[in-house]
């Protein structure tokens, strides 16, 4: 195995989080290590029952746009966010949850899906992962 991808998942938007997971799973599939650092709005997606709940970044229209996109994705046989997340963990992907975001947003550890989270950390944890990475993205 060679190389590493580190992605900051700052957005909680449905379309952006799914893009992050697709890039992450593609990287794992091509033999790279991957760390996802969930912070700000992204951290909401790690709440219990929250993974698929994000709005669309554009044309959400109070959730109508989101439903339409989800319908079209199902028709095109695009994997669900839960499947992408299960594959991510099965292939050894690592998740860091931002502690500062938890303080700011009043999120407690018991609100989060702890089975997905490998570490709680801050900016130093991100830098430590990113400095060893050939690919690093902010989504």
């Amino acid at each position, binding site marked *: 195995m060679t190389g590493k991808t580190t992605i900051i998942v700052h957005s909680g938007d449905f379309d952006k989080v799914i893009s992050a997971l697709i890039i992450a799973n593609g990287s794992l599939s091509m033999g790279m290590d991957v760390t996802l650092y969930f912070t700000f709005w992204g951290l909401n997606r790690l709440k219990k029952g929250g993974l698929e709940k994000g709005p669309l970044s554009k044309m959400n229209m109070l959730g109508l746009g989101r439903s339409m996109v989800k319908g079209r994705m199902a028709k095109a046989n695009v994997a669900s966010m839960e499947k992408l997340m299960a594959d991510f963990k*099965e292939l050894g992907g690592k998740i860091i949850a931002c502690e500062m975001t938890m303080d700011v947003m009043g999120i407690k550890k018991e609100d989060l899906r702890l089975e997905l989270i490998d570490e709680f950390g801050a900016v130093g944890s991100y830098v430590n992962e990113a400095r060893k990475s050939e690919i690093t993205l902010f989504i």
Partner: protein
Amino acid sequence: MVKIDLDCRGQNCPVPLVEVRKALKKAAKGDVIEVVGTHPASKKEIPMAVEALGEELLEIKDQGKEWVIRIRKV
């Protein structure tokens, strides 16, 4: 040696690539994975992943609208 069949017909990005990686992870040395699919980009990208992973690409062939790729775990 075991032959492992993977049916990814109809699956979209990134599923065929991910399923191949999962199968390679579970396979033993010498096992052959035969994956069949329809997603066009995966036909190019699965061989890229096989090369990156240092596994052996045995065959890529077309079967009508489907492609078949055979990989040996090294």
